[in-house]
Structure formats: structure tokens, C-alpha cells
């Protein structure tokens, strides 16, 4: 075994291991290479999902058929959902930035189980191909919606089986990543790095990992049951055989609601790194953020019923689920207050990651507050299954996770690639993207309250105006995305070489060279009594 200093300053991007070229990447157990593999795969899937989203918005440009029939539209929103949920936002931040940064942030050489980590990526890719197989082969793409609701999911004639199996495999990949991170955080913190000195991104990864571990198996077995229902007709969710489709919804949402916290917690963690760095100030309420992270992870388990207020459940259950839904909003609000308070009297350095972080807080608040409209029993009945839900969901998940992803991308980019991006193009990209985002999703709140249902390829004439604005927004958003991606790709190749610590941050990953050496640290770092991830003067 050689230490990194013995390989002539080779970094993780350039070194050569057992295999050459592409094989040196897809068989590498280096957490940073695996992180990049995830980044490229997830970016590809995001672009695919984005194109499907654009197609849907184009269909909704005018009432009646615009470019596709109802069945095609059904398949489009299903595949858009499956790709964006299971392949983009769930693995998004943990698999990309968790893999790239977690060991660096805790002063470790790698994650606890490097081979298992590689297996997770392979499972991810397998899941992706399985879902894609459902599109390309068989009697047509799945049309059930990403929720695979029973009994339609085993009655539909479309090729659902590979998609369900693919989602199962993706879940397995997610579980293994969570398991790996939990053990890594427990066992591999460098000397002196106590739990109360962990960077908040690490804390949120920790909370996320527990959710991945404890919620995903439930949806896994539920998807297996749907598959068995389809193939053998076991009857568990089939009302014709005595089964209960509502039970499917319970089991599905027991996972899929906590899953939105898998998406949002690491996003909050990334924002909690960026805000103090660009305010050059200690994060306000470090322990409050940790406590609220764990509170979200815990209470998030107990609110799934709010997806089913109109599906049929007892009044008592509805009250409890509604109350708990309001309670889970509190820790999220605590975090927002902490971020804002951190900025107060800070020496704010306005850079691209900061723009993303600030706009994250805004869209996250709109998304969160509109969520309360859905969590309240009376208003939920009014807007259930309307465009309002789509607007809320995209504000919180795309606005939350997506904006935080881009914030993290622009924050850690110089560390990952060792080059700085073109800042003015990055800012233009952010501005165009944000304008597009607001134009795309804001009208959905209005349309939903007016009564426009979701998941229809057609609508009444009175909804035309809002839809035109929304479709226009989708084009602006896509333009912004292209600007961002082109700028980043170009900068990764030709950007100015980046310093070790361009943002003057205090966390450990900024103490190593950019890009990091193969084994991260030449000497194992030691954290002293007075050191801390946010100890700015």
C-alpha cells in the first residue's frame, strides 16, 4: 500500500489503479470516483426526466390534444415521476455529495465499506436499466403514476413489472448507501471529531441514512407484493380476492412520505454549510439544527396518512395525521429561522452558491407553507388531486432538493474538479433558472385552487392563461439548466485552477488540495478542543 504522497501528487481524478480508462472508474471503490459516477448518472437521468416534463408542459400549452394522446400523457407523467423520484431526488444529494464529501468532512480515508459502496452504484445502474426496459420493450410504458397504486398497477396492460422491479432495486441501492454512511459516521470520525463538532451536512446525512434504512424496506416489500399480484394473483391488494387496495396506499406512503425527508434533509444540510461559509459566521443554533434534523427524521415516519385524507380513513386517524403534519413543519421552520439568524450581522460574500442557498430558502418556504394547506383536513379535500398538489410538491422537492443540489454543486465544484467555474455565467444560469422555476410552478397553485385536476392531458378553456405561463416557464427553466450545465462542463475542463479553500470555509474537506489526493489526507487530521466546523472569527 502506498500513501498518497508517494504517487507524485496524483489526485483522485488522475491516478491509475488496477484498471485503465473507463474500467478504472466503474470498478473503482474510491468514494470520490463513485460520487462522480453518481453525479454523471443522476445528471443524465435528470435531463431525461426534464425532457419528459417539457413534453408534458408542451401538451398542456393549449386545451385538447396538442402533441400527444391521453395514454401517452399518462405514460409520460408516470415515467417522469419514476425517474425524478427514484433516480434523481432520492439518491441525489446523499449519493453524489455524501459520497464525495462525507469521508473528507470527517477526516476519513474512505467510507466504511468501499466495495459495498461500489455495489450500490451498480445496483443503481441496474435499476435504471430495468425501468428503461419497461419503456422500450413490451406492450407500452407504465401508466399508473409513480405511486403504482393498487389495483390499477396489476390490472394495467402496460409493461409495469420491470419498472416495479427497477424501483425495488433502486431502493436496495439506497438502503446500502444509508447503511454505509451510518457505519462510516459512527466508526471513522478522525480523532477529536466529537458528535457535537460534526458538520451539519454530516448530521443530515446521518438522519437521512436512518430513514433510508428503516423506511425503504417497507416500500420494497410492497413493490414485491404488487409484482406477485401481477404475476400470480396472490390477492393481497386485489379487492376481487378479498384484498384491500387502501392497505397498499398505507404501506406505500409509510415509505414514500419519509422519502421526501430523504430528499430534503441532506439539502438542508448543504444549505447549513453554505450559509455560514458565505456569512463568515458561526451557524446560529447548531444544536437546534441537529435536534430539528433528528425530529424531522422521527416525526416524518408518522405523517404518511396525510396523503390519504380522501382515500377513506377514520376521522380520528385523520385528526392525528393532520396534527402530526403540522408538528413536522415546526423543525423545518426552526431551520429557516436559524439560517436567517446566521446571516444577521454576517460579513456576507455574495457568490453563486449563496444565490442558490437564498433562493432555496424562499422556494422551500413557499413549498412548506403550501404543504400546510394540504395538511389541513378541510382545505385538503378542496385541492386534493389538483394542480395545487403538483405546485406544492415541485416547490418543495424540486425547489428544495434541486436548488440545494445546484447550491452544493457550485459550492463544492472547485474542490471536486480543482477548477473554478465562470462565476458570471453561473449567476446568469441561476437567474434564468429561478425565473423559469417561478413561472413554471407558481401558476399551478392558482390553477389548482380554481379546480384544475392533475394528471389530465386536457383542461377547460378557463385554465388556459395559467397554463401558457407555466409552459413558458418550463422553457425558461430548461434554458437556465442548459446554461448551468454548459458552464460547469466547460469550467471542469478549462476553468481557472482553484485554490484549496476558495470560500474560506472551516470544514475539513477544504484543508486538502483541490482536487483531493487519492487517499484524502496525507496525515490523519486531529480536531483540537477549540476547532469546529463553524468557528469563524
Amino acid at each position, binding site marked *: 500500500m502506498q500513501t498518497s504522497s508517494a504517487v507524485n501528487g496524483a489526485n483522485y481524478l488522475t491516478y491509475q489503479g488496477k484498471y485503465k480508462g473507463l474500467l478504472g472508474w466503474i470498478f473503482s471503490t474510491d468514494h470520490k470516483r463513485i460520487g462522480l459516477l453518481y453525479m454523471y448518472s443522476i445528471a443524465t437521468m435528470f435531463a431525461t426526466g426534464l425532457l419528459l416534463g417539457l413534453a408534458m408542459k408542451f401538451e398542456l400549452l393549449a386545451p385538447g390534444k396538442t402533441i400527444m394522446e391521453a395514454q401517452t400523457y399518462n405514460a409520460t407523467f408516470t415515467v417522469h415521476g419514476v425517474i425524478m423520484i427514484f433516480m434523481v431526488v432520492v439518491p441525489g444529494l446523499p449519493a453524489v455529495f455524501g459520497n464525495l464529501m462525507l469521508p473528507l468532512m470527517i477526516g476519513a480515508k474512505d467510507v466504511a465499506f468501499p466495495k459495498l459502496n461500489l455495489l450500490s452504484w451498480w445496483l443503481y445502474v441496474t435499476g435504471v436499466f430495468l425501468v428503461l426496459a419497461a419503456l422500450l420493450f413490451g406492450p407500452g410504458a407504465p401508466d399508473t403514476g409513480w405511486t403504482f397504486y393498487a389495483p390499477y398497477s396489476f390490472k394495467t396492460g402496460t409493461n409495469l413489472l420491470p419498472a416495479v422491479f427497477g424501483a425495488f432495486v433502486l431502493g436496495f441501492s439506497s438502503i446500502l448507501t444509508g447503511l454505509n454512511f451510518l457505519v462510516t459516521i459512527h466508526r471513522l470520525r478522525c480523532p477529536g471529531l466529537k458528535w457535537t463538532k460534526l458538520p451539519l451536512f454530516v448530521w443530515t446525512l446521518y438522519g437521512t441514512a436512518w430513514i433510508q434504512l*428503516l423506511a425503504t424496506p417497507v416500500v420494497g416489500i410492497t413493490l414485491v407484493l404488487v409484482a406477485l399480484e401481477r404475476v400470480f394473483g396472490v390477492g393481497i391488494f386485489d379487492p376481487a380476492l378479498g384484498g384491500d387496495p387502501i392497505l397498499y396506499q398505507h404501506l406505500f406512503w409509510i415509505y414514500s412520505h419519509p422519502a421526501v425527508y430523504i430528499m430534503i434533509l441532506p439539502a438542508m444540510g448543504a444549505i447549513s454549510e453554505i450559509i455560514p461559509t458565505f456569512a463568515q459566521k458561526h451557524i446560529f443554533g447548531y444544536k437546534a439544527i441537529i435536534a430539528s434534523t433528528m425530529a424531522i427524521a422521527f416525526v416524518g415516519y408518522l405523517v404518511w396518512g396525510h396523503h390519504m385524507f380522501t382515500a377513506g380513513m377514520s376521522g380520528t386517524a385523520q385528526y392525528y395525521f393532520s396534527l402530526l403534519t403540522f408538528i413536522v413543519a415546526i423543525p423545518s421552520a426552526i431551520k429557516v429561522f436559524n439560517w436567517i439568524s446566521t446571516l444577521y450581522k454576517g460579513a456576507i460574500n455574495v457568490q453563486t452558491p449563496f444565490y442558490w442557498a437564498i433562493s432555496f430558502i424562499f422556494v422551500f418556504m413557499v413549498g412548506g407553507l403550501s404543504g400546510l394547506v394540504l395538511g389541513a383536513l378541510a382545505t385538503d379535500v378542496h385541492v386534493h388531486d389538483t394542480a395545487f398538489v403538483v405546485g406544492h410538491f415541485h416547490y418543495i422537492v424540486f425547489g428544495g432538493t434541486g436548488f440545494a443540489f445546484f447550491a452544493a454543486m457550485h459550492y463544492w465544484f472547485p474542490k471536486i474538479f480543482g477548477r473554478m467555474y465562470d462565476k458570471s455565467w453561473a449567476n446568469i444560469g441561476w437567474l434564468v433558472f429561478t425565473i423559469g422555476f417561478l413561472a413554471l410552478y407558481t401558476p399551478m397553485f392558482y390553477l389548482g385552487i380554481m379546480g384544475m385536476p392533475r394528471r389530465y392531458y386536457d383542461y377547460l378553456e378557463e385554465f388556459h392563461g395559467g397554463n401558457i405561463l407555466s409552459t413558458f416557464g418550463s422553457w425558461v427553466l430548461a434554458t437556465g439548466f442548459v446554461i448551468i450545465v454548459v458552464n460547469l462542463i466547460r469550467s471542469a475542463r478549462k476553468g481557472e485552477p482553484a485554490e484549496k479553500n476558495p470560500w474560506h470555509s472551516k470544514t475539513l474537506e477544504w484543508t486538502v488540495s483541490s482536487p483531493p489526493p487519492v487517499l484524502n489526507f496525507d496525515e490523519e487530521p486531529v480536531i483540537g478542543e477549540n476547532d469546529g466546523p463553524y468557528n469563524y472569527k
Partner: protein
Amino acid sequence: MEHAHHVEHPDMYDEESSKIGMWLFIFTELLLFGALFVVYAVYRYMNPDAFHLAAEELNRMIGAINTIILLISSMTIAMSTTALRKGHRKLAIALVSITFLIGLAFLVNKYFEWGVKFSHGIWPGSEHMLNEMSQGEILFFGLYFVMTGLHALHIIIGMAIMVFAIRGLINGKVQIDRPSLLDNCGLYWHLVDLIWIFLFPLFYLIH
């Protein structure tokens, strides 16, 4: 780098990490089956009579034999880890191999048990079930096949891990100061055993 040096990645072996990892994985397995137990509880509550009637069809003798078989196998795998800790590598290999064979015996029993059901026309979606059974009975047998089938799959996975453990014991990757694979193999096998301990009364014994 044209002439980059060959870089080995660090060996991250840590007994404690492996143990924590395995326990976490066991949590996920418990939740996987936990969801099925919830489904079982709901449907049993909704169809108490039909579940009682359907349970009469099951062969309690084979179930009891399989329970005893699995309990013995848990003992032999536990003995193998102890044997390794005391440095008796060959004994450890022998004990894991015995456990493997006992697992096989369980599967053979299961094969005959399912075979009898099939010969009575009982399988998910069979005409006999759809035409002559109540909805509660259909659900009972649906759950019976899903849960015992998934359990049998776990038996097979457990046996596959044993093959790796035996290989590791033979080629020295698993040894007295590197016992994690065998330990985890044992932990997993105990889990598989434990799940059966719950399945057996739920399907065969409760009236």
C-alpha cells in the same frame, strides 16, 4: 498521468464496523418482514374464521420438524463461530458445512410441503382457490405462499453466504483475527431462524 503509479486502496477491515453494518442490515430485514406481519395482522383481524379454517389445511408435523431443524442449525452455526474463536478452523468448516446441509433439509421439507398443497390444487390464482375458497382463505394462502416463500429465499441467501464463509475459512480470508464474515453469516442465519419462529405459530398454530 501517463505513468501513474499503481495505487492500492486502503484495507478498511474493522470488526466493529462489520458487526454494526450487519445489525443495521438485520433491521432492514425485520422491517421487510414487519410489513408482511402487519398485512397478516390486518387480514387475520378481518377474516378470523376463514384464517382458522385455512390453517387446518397446513401440516403441523412438517412445520414442527422444520422448526426443530432450524433451531439445531442455529446451534451448529453458533458453534462454528465459537470454534473459530478457539482456533479450531477445521471444526469451524465442518460445523458450517453441517449447517448448510441442515438448511438444505429445511428446503427439501418445504418442497414437499408446497408440493402437497399444489397437488390439492392450492396455489395463488388456482381454479380450486378461486372457485371453492372464501376470500379470507384466499388471503391466508396468498400470505402463506408469499411469506414462507420469501423466508425460503432468505434460507437460500443464508446458505449462499455460508459457501463464501467456508471458502474464506479454507483460503484464510476468514481466520481467528478476521472472523467478521463467519460472524455475520451466523447473525444472518439467526435472523432467518427467528423469522421462522414467528411464521410457524402464525400460520400453523394459532386458532
